[in-house]
């Protein structure tokens, strides 16, 4: 009951957040985003045709009515049709979001799990060569541009100039082996970059936890290193870890990865979103922004629930 009340309360307080995010982003789209009219015009356009297209795009309506229409679309989850392709926005998202999820999740999960594991090792050996080695590697991962990493992995593992083991481009995934075939190189590239950021962050969290009294006490009791790390340190460091992971999820779900998708020829939502941003395809942008805002509210709620699960002292009141 306490949980249900909490969820309802959070949902209600999430509404201003959604309104705030959508209002600001819609304002930016309308007044600072690309004008789609001039991409839809023929080569020898007339003033009459310009007005026709502006009318069809709804550009001639007052801002308030356009925003209210947006809110209605968000509530009904019906964002109409893409201004570029004419396809239903819901169909586009239904087709592309699962592909982006399938593409990014392995890298996201492995990047976090390995990051935590390496952070534990580094923190446990704090100040020693192993710590320095891991942290040095993290800095390398953080310093190299994602684009360079993608190209390097593609040349080394996929192209004929390298090993040629994996496909350069495509997403013909019909079974598990196809999936592994297509997802391996993008995943390795993602993990390479994510590890740097994750390891450094998690190490800082764990190092802080290691200095606490209960850890010192456990050490004094002669607790074995594995138990000390997982039961006494990691469990108590879970709150910042959960926060970091949870707040990355909306972006993973809806934004995809433009660079991975464009370089590996994967028809995910990242490419669709990027094209929508650069071409001013407002129906898609409205959907992406709106759903991301809603997901953030959901994540906020789940985040608090997870806090309660990992630390019973946290109150949901």
């Amino acid at each position, binding site marked *: 009951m306490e949980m249900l009340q909490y969820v309802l309360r959070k949902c209600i307080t999430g509404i201003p957040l959604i309104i705030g995010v959508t209002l600001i982003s819609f304002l930016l789209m309308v007044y600072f985003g690309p004008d789609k009219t001039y991409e839809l015009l023929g080569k020898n356009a*007339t003033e009459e045709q310009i007005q026709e297209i502006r009318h069809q795009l709804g550009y001639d309506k007052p801002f308030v009515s356009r925003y209210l229409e947006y809110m209605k679309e968000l509530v009904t989850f019906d964002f109409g049709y893409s201004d570029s392709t004419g396809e239903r926005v819901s169909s586009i998202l239904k087709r592309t979001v699962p592909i982006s999820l399938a593409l990014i999740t392995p890298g996201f999960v492995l990047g976090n*799990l390995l990051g935590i594991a390496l952070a534990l090792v580094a923190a446990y050996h704090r100040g020693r060569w192993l710590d320095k080695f891991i942290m040095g590697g993290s800095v390398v991962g953080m310093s190299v541009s994602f684009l360079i990493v993608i190209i390097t992995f593609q040349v080394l593992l996929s192209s004929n100039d390298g090993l040629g083991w994996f496909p350069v481009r495509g997403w013909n995934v019909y079974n598990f082996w196809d999936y592994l075939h297509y997802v391996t190189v993008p995943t390795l590239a993602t993990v390479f970059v994510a590890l740097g950021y994750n390891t450094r962050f998690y190490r800082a969290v764990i190092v802080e936890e290691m200095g606490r009294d209960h850890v010192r006490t456990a050490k004094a009791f002669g607790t074995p290193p594995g138990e000390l790390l997982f039961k006494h340190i990691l469990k108590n460091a879970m709150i910042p870890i959960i926060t970091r992971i949870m707040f990355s999820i909306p972006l993973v779900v809806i934004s995809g990865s433009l660079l991975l998708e464009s370089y590996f020829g994967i028809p995910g939502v990242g490419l669709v979103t990027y094209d929508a941003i650069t071409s001013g395809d407002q129906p898609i942008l409205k959907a992406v922004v709106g759903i991301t805002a809603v997901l953030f509210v959901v994540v906020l709620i789940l985040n608090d629930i997870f806090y309660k699960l990992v630390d019973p002292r946290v109150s949901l009141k």
Partner: protein
Amino acid sequence: MVFRHFMSKRISGLLILLSILLAAGCSDGPDTNGMKIYRHSLKGAPSSLDPVQAATVYANHVVVNVYDTLYSYKYLARPYQIKPNLAMGLPEISVDGLTYTIHIKKGVEFTDDPAFPNGKGREVSAADFVYSLKRHFDPKTRAQGSWLWAGRIKGMAEWKKAGSDYDKEVEGLKALDRYTIQIILNKPFPQLVHTLAQGYAAIVPKEAVEHYGREFSVRPVGSGPFRLQRFDSVGVALVRNPKFRQEPIDLAYEGYDETIHGQYGIHEIEGKIPPLVDRLEIHFVKESLSRWNSFTKGNEIQYAEIPKELLDDVLSEKKPDLIMKPEYAQRFFMIGGIENAFVFSTFNMRDAEIGYNPDPQREKMNRALRCAIRYAFDWKERNRTFYSDIGFIFPGIIPPVVPEYDPDLSSASVEHNPEKGQKLLQEAGWTADNLPTLDYGAVADVQYRQFFEQYRGWLAKIGYPKKKVVYNSFASFGDYNKAIKQAKIKIISMAWALDYPDAENTLQLFYGPNGAPGSNSTNFNDPEFNRLYELTSVMQPSPERTRLYRKMNQIVIDSCAIISGLSRTRIFMWHKDVVSFPNEDIVGGFHLKYVDVKEAQK
């Protein structure tokens, strides 16, 4: 123990997650065993596959392969030659050049689709063409091709004004019977047949337009050689249309020349019936390195344009002929040629600071300023820096790919002569203080910025203060186009791809009434040019028309309204197991139904 427990729980969680992901990202695969598959690539993607929105060469690659057009271009003949496609023959034209009668083939059917009763595609009729062309004048369709026929078809403007009611007839566009189309023009339009070969003129069934509504743009239903299987942001997959008419290839008719085409094995397709592959995939790959890696991989895309950054790696010689290095020549075919387009810069003549000015003295000064800037421009350097020194520089606005091009025209307007430019400025009374600030418009992009910096450097050589040459960048092409259509930029950097092989298509860019927001972005408005344009626009190709075209070209050059131009050389490669004579210039993709691959998928 704790660690093992921790890991086993997480591994099972991971496996569950993996299964969910797999289910989410997978779909049923097509059975491609034994199929002939050709994997083409393009460096851009279409947004819509609705013929009325087929504004790009990328969209046309799909549209002309899914739909039928009345006319097409011969596969191999260069210069391009029109041939009947769905039409029985070339149009019957009345003596006054105003009435076109076109008979279409009988028994041609649309592909089967749920849009039709019982899912069975019906026969294509003359009424379908009439309906398809009317759609360009229906504001609801967001058509982009109406400019081809606007003001030319009798009664079409009135039909649109009356509310674009498809049940009402257009006087100049009728289906006389099931297989006969009649087009009546307001005035002769010699390029009409060319326009009927464009993707814009593709024939769509009304049932599919109504069934799919807005989504018709991603669910094309046509009577062309292929039908669509998949379309997304990275490519399309088309499969053979089993109902496509049986018309064996006659290579002699298509313009086969053993000396040109023999080396590509084109003779192998003689007598075969298009389409020659079971599955045509067109991959949209904007990233040149990724495209190249995929192309050289061997089992991925089979056709690609050489990225310009790799030209020196792939070619052993660039001049006078393009020659591939032996390691590439063993594996690939190559073709290179001047594009059916050109790049140029124009001055906004509507801007009184640099263009037309009511004050005759200032008008004279402005012309001197434009000419001086043109002398500052170094086309050879531009060619070396950005086009691998293999672009073709020519004076004026009639590019080398059209028959009206004049190879003997003086090249003075494309010569770099900063001294002369500086002298012109001084003589006209321009000083560093009174020179206007020039805004150079372009889309925000590294290469455009580089163009600008090079341009500014050249202007400095004629004494133009650097701070008076500013970069006006736009986030998207739409925004840039908006500024052009509103005549807000002084210097416009442009490229123009010809819709059909007739210089009229570039000359119309300088016809006064086509000024912004029309295609005349220069806002050039010269009475003599306009008179000649109107005169020639109704003339059939002839030496006299060519003479007048060249005269118009000279008027534009003499006015110093443009800095033009250069046609880029584009080089394409394809695998040796593919029989093809690729073409990306006119329309886009009309050759794909003739592409064959030697081995079927195993």
